[in-house]
């Protein structure tokens, strides 16, 4: 087989060219010399000079000074020279826009050349010269080229439309190029079709609502026909485009699937993955009892496995995608475990991904094989890989109960190797196994204790301390072990400190007589000598619990722990569905939605899987649905007294809970830090490492607690920009205040009725509350707290209900709020979960605040800034709304809105329409721009049209609600 490459090599050696010499010139005065050579009369010399210029350009030297000289070489019959000059032009035209015009004539002339290769070259290059002035000249040649008789020119022109759109979108629309491009979808040449599809798809990404691609059964049919005929790359463009289509019914869905499945045998992995994407998506619509559904599932497995014989980089892409597919439809690959076994020579990134998938596929049927493999891996060289393998053994134990015993003994073997990081990793996972199977494997504790000294990683130390505390009654020298850790208490990481505190309290509750001193010591270390608020808070709670009611303390600290979930690192279902729609793309590699890594707005609209036809069974893959953090669950109107909220509330001025300890939500995540002791611990543990919880005075505690902490905001990764804090306070009046509504009915709150509303007065947000006592006894000791919420609303001071509330009495209270509380995105965005406590109990409710509450007084944007910002925000972030039957003229509307801090920046009247351009700023610094169109001519048309543009488009809908509310009242 080598003859071919040998042949080529010979040809290479024999050829005259040794272009590498162009890379070597580094002497001074080079530019000057080049200039002379470029202006030489000899063609050969000119060409040589241009080559030198290009070589300099490549290595990063600035040769833009030679612009006029290089452009002068453009008018030549020598195509090679011409191409070189074009290359130079593409690089430097932008920095020399005026000079670039010099080139226009040649381009226009070349677009008329009899040689189609030259016509195409001209139109291709012209599109790459990103100078506004040139685009005008480009239009005519481009129009001709789009209708050229030669398919090579047409396919090049099709891409050029996308280039032009990127420079000047308006021009493309005005010139009608989009329609011409759409016509090319029906072109007789498959490559023209493919490029037109690619160009249209790209343009459509920046116009999400434009229906530009207009996919209907006829066009789909054309695409499917072209699919059979075009190049491998064209097939990818077409399949990626098909994936955006939503079939009308399951029959259409099936017929498309049937025509796409042959692509699974293509040699190009990208074609295969794009076909898989179409199939995975359209499969959603097929009824599960359909024979074809089963056939399709079977057809998907072999090509996915084949992807693993590709080059390593592609294997990596394939594995990242398979990871998603396995989570979405575990049945497809459940019998293919072996192909994910790690090979000795696999690159590390392939190894780690394979391991991930192995754990997901592990089941009773294959666990023996899997374990044998994992044990091998645990002796490999790469530290990350070994750690992950050890962890995987623990996961297997938790996932497949039958294997637990074998896993534990494997882990013990590994601990015997005394390899430091293996031991530490093993201890971390054994702790999880204890949690899953309580009272089963404690016999190994002795072995674990032997390794206490070698643990130097916080996670492993924390795990070991947890184990000692949890099983203190069975470890004779538990107090000594824990005491030894206590010596260096202040040098430990927070994780270990917290764990040590809890473990010693547990120990104390189990063996009170011998450990009193120890517990005193740790409590004072935690509360007096530490400046970590989490640690201090926890210390105080324990202290208080222990000093007031040791029985309750026991119930709380030693409560039965909830079981841990089987699966970890599962992708949240809505994100998973979105990622399935992005199979093959970067999003599927990063396991992040495009919006997380793509700048601006291009292609970041959320994709969704189509709904199944017929009876909508949404419980598709039940095993996936679980174990997802509670964040995504929409909270009910009245929250049952459990969950995260209580955790926050425990920091309030509460008497120790006397009755039943609420169950912890079953959605605790493994691997998180919250593997602490009792129910209380886990609740508090939720915050470990996160935001400091709010501390309000704790009665009885020895030292005054910091009161009313405006806790540092916990800005979560992806939400960062949305919830950035900022905000300003100005002065205004006259904003609309909705009437009070009942938030907490008396029935649900042992006789306490709470109604309320929100208002913004003098730049301060107020929560106006009415408490009504409908019970028979007096109520006292009111307190309030909010759960974390989208905009960090928090009480700015304590709730002032000064006098006891007698039966049938109502008291009105206005609570000022700040926006500096902890932030967590809520669904809906404006949801607020509140807990109110009185002498009887703690009550929970949730309410929604108008987002206008957050509109700040300095929200008027400068006109110029407005214009620039409007342009800058991608158009897919624009949302359109209609406000029906509103009888206001533009001035009245403008005034009304201004009262609520919606400012009119400019007004424009076109024909019978008034357009108000308005800006709003939220407390967290987010700007919203709006255009409000009001009909003036016709008294019968009373509908207003509103477009809202915002970098955080999820807010738009709430802004619209505010407009409705304000304009109607």
């Amino acid at each position, binding site marked *: 087989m080598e003859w*071919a*490459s040998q042949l080529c090599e010979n*040809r*290479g050696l024999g050829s005259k060219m*040794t*272009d590498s010499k162009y890379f070597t010139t580094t002497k001074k005065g080079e530019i000057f010399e080049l200039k002379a050579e470029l202006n030489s009369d000899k063609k050969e010399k000119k060409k040589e000079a241009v080559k030198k210029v290009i070589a300099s350009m*490549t290595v*990063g030297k600035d040769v833009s000074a030679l612009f006029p000289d290089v452009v002068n070489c453009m008018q030549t019959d*020598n*195509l*090679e020279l011409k191409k*070189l000059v074009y290359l130079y032009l593409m690089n430097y035209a932008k920095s020399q826009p005026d000079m670039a015009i010099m080139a226009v004539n040649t381009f226009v002339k070349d677009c008329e050349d*009899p040689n*189609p*290769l030259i016509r195409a070259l001209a139109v291709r290059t012209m599109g790459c010269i*990103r100078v506004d002035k040139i685009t005008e000249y480009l239009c005519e040649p481009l129009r001709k080229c789009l209708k050229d008789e030669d*398919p*090579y*020119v047409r*396919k090049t022109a099709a*891409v050029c439309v*996308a*280039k032009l759109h*990127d420079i000047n979108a308006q021009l493309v629309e005005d010139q009608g190029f989009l329609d011409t491009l759409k016509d090319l979808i029906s072109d007789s*040449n*498959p*490559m023209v079709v493919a490029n037109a599809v*690619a160009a249209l798809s790209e343009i459509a990404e920046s116009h999400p609502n434009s229906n530009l691609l207009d996919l209907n059964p006829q066009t789909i049919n054309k695409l499917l026909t072209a699919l059979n005929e075009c*190049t491998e*790359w064209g097939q990818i*463009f077409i399949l990626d485009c098909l994936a955006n289509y939503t079939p009308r019914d399951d029959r259409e869905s099936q017929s498309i699937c049937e025509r796409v499945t*042959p*692509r699974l*045998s*293509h040699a190009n*992995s*990208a074609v*295969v993955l*794009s076909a898989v994407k179409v199939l995975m998506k359209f499969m959603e619509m097929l009824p599960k009892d359909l024979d074809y559904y089963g056939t399709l599932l079977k057809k998907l497995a*072999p090509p996915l*496995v084949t992807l693993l*014989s590709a080059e390593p*980089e592609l294997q990596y892409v394939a594995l990242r995608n398979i990871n998603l597919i396995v989570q979405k439809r575990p049945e497809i690959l459940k019998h293919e475990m*072996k192909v994910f076994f790690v090979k000795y020579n696999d*690159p590390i*990134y392939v190894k780690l991904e394979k391991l991930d998938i192995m754990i997901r596929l592990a089941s009773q049927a294959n666990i023996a*094989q899997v374990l044998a*493999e994992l044990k*091998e891996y645990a*002796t490999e060289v790469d530290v990350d890989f070994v750690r992950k393998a050890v962890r995987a053994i623990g996961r297997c134990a938790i996932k497949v109960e039958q294997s637990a015993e074998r896993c534990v003994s494997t882990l013990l073997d590994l601990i015997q190797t005394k390899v*430091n990081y293996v031991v530490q990793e093993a201890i971390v996972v054994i702790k999880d196994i204890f949690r899953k199977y309580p009272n089963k494997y404690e016999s190994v504790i002795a072995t674990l204790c032997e390794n206490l000294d070698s643990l130097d990683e916080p996670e492993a130390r924390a795990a070991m301390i947890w184990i000692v505390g949890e099983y203190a009654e069975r470890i004779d020298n538990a107090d000594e072990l824990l005491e030894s850790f206590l010596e260096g208490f202040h040098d430990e990481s927070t994780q270990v400190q917290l764990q040590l505190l809890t473990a010693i309290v547990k120990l104390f509750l189990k063996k009170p007589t011998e450990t009193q001193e120890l517990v005193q010591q740790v409590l004072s270390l935690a509360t007096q000598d530490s400046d970590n608020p989490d640690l201090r808070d926890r210390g105080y709670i324990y202290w208080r619990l222990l000093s007031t009611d040791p029985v309750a303390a026991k119930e709380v600290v030693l409560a039965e722990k909830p079981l841990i979930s089987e699966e970890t690192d599962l992708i949240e279902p809505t994100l998973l569905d979105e990622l399935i729609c992005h199979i*093959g*793309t*970067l999003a*599927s590699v*990063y396991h992040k939605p495009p919006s997380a*890594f793509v*700048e601006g707005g*291009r*292609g970041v609209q959320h994709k969704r899987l189509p709904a199944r036809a017929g009876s909508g069974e949404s419980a598709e893959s039940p095993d996936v649905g679980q174990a997802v953090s509670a964040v995504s669950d929409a909270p009910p109107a009245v929250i049952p007294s459990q969950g995260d909220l209580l955790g926050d509330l425990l920091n309030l001025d509460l008497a120790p809970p006397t009755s039943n300890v609420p169950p912890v939500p079953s959605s605790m995540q493994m691997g998180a830090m919250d593997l602490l002791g009792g129910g209380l611990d886990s609740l508090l543990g939720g915050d470990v490492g996160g935001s400091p919880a709010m501390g309000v005075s704790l009665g009885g505690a020895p030292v005054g607690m910091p009161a009313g902490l405006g806790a540092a905001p916990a800005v979560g990764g992806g939400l960062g920009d949305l919830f950035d804090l900022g905000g300003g306070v100005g002065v205004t009046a006259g904003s609309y205040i909705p009437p009070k509504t009942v938030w907490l009915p008396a029935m649900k709150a042992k006789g306490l009725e709470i109604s309320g509303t929100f208002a913004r007065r003098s730049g301060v947000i107020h929560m106006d509350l009415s408490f009504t006592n409908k019970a028979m006894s007096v109520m006292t000791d009111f307190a309030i707290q909010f759960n974390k919420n989208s905009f960090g609303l928090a009480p700015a001071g304590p709730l002032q209900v000064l006098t006891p509330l007698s039966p049938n009495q109502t008291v009105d209270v206005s609570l000022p709020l700040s926006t500096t509380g902890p932030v967590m995105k809520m669904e809906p965005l404006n949801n607020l979960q509140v807990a109110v406590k009185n002498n009887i109990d703690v009550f929970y409710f949730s309410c929604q605040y108008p987002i206008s509450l957050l509109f700040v007084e300095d929200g008027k944007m400068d006109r110029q800034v407005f214009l620039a910002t409007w342009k800058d925000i991608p158009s897919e972030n624009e949302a359109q709304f209609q406000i029906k039957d509103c009888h206001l003229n533009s001035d009245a509307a403008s005034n009304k809105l201004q009262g609520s801090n919606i400012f009119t920046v400019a007004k424009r009247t076109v024909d019978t329409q008034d357009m108000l351009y308005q800006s709003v700023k939220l407390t967290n610094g987010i700007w919203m721009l709006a255009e409000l169109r009001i009909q003036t001519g016709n008294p019968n048309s009373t509908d207003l049209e509103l477009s809202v543009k915002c970098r955080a488009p999820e807010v738009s809908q709430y802004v619209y609600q505010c407009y409705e509310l304000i304009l109607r009242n």
Partner: protein
Amino acid sequence: MIGGLFIYNHKGEVLISRVYRDDIGRNAVDAFRVNVIHARQQVRSPVTNIARTSFFHVKRSNIWLAAVTKQNVNAAMVFEFLYKMCDVMTAYFGKISEENIKNNFVLIYELLDEILDFGYPQNSETGALKTFITQQGIKSQLQTKEEQSQITSQVTGQIGWRREGIKYRRNELFLDVLESVNLLMSPQGQVLSAHVSGRVVMKSYLSGMPECKFGMNDKIVIDKQGKGGTTDEAGKSELGGSSGKQSIAIDDCTFHQCVRLSKFDSERSISFIPPDGEYELMRYRTTKDIILPFRVIPLVREVGRTKLEVKVVIKSNFKPSLLAQKIEVRIPTPLNTSGVQVICMKGKAKYKASENAIVWKIKRMAGMKESQISAEIELLPTNDKKKWARPPISMNFEVPFAPSGLKVRYLKVFEPKLNYSDHDVIKWVRYIGRSGIYETRC
């Protein structure tokens, strides 16, 4: 789509830089050099995100190729394109090396201009590209109008991989069935995983636009024909159809883009118009009933802390009339090895300290034979706590049959427009089985 493409040497110097999109700046070039090429750690992912810019990279000998983007591109496509780019360059100037790239940088820019437009890959079949882009510069100025339109219709056409008007005095084709057999065996001789990944490589020297049909002993086809009773007797043993397994179960196969996939999907027949010259017709994978040409039986004994005794037996497991070649057994040794004594019955064995292995080479070995090596490994005492990882014993070999059992049944050629028939075509078939990753744990 792809925003830019850079080629670097191992030092991180830019050899080729072509930017297709505005969002990719010159700083991207440096970002990749600093964060990936000069990074101290080995590559942890072939896709690296640096400051919201994604870099897809592959390495060929000392050369890095990186495609850069800021958008949510089709990642699989980008890698496929990078591989294709390597193929194209190899087809034009041979090995991808710094010297070759510098010598051909004008050509590479020209190719990049042609096969990637605004970041969208275009026709990248070398057969088509070579009709108008050559190392000696561009041909087109010498071409007639007919030639020009022939080029453009070929580049954009349905059969972009073959040009019209090819003529050979002697119509000839070569089929190579190349298989690599992969094995992972436990020390006890249990097969942990085994599969064959095979390729059918065709070299065709055929005139005109021949229509070809390829047939093999695919279980699904044979079973279907058996039921229908229309066994294609004529085709059955037309090409080297020796006895052996009747049919084999193919787990999955993929085809060169010339093969009509919809036809394969509906009828399971493989029909195509081949590219001229050499190309890969299909790839396939089988996991059932694989003939494992060699069995390795390891025996490792630790004698105290400073000595290892290793005995390895290999057994060949195929017809005695066949000969295996280029046999090589690689027995890993611990890092603290101080000396090795080897005795082998056949071939030559050597301890290679630089590779931490004993390499045992046997030139030829017939089927159903057995051979043995034994070695004593002296170890330096160490206080390293970490145990030796005992990497698996690996093997290399080449055998003149297909371990999957695949047989070519026929390859028919039809060219209705020219006056040669299937019988006039000279056909050659060859089977080569090679070791892929063939490992036995010890």
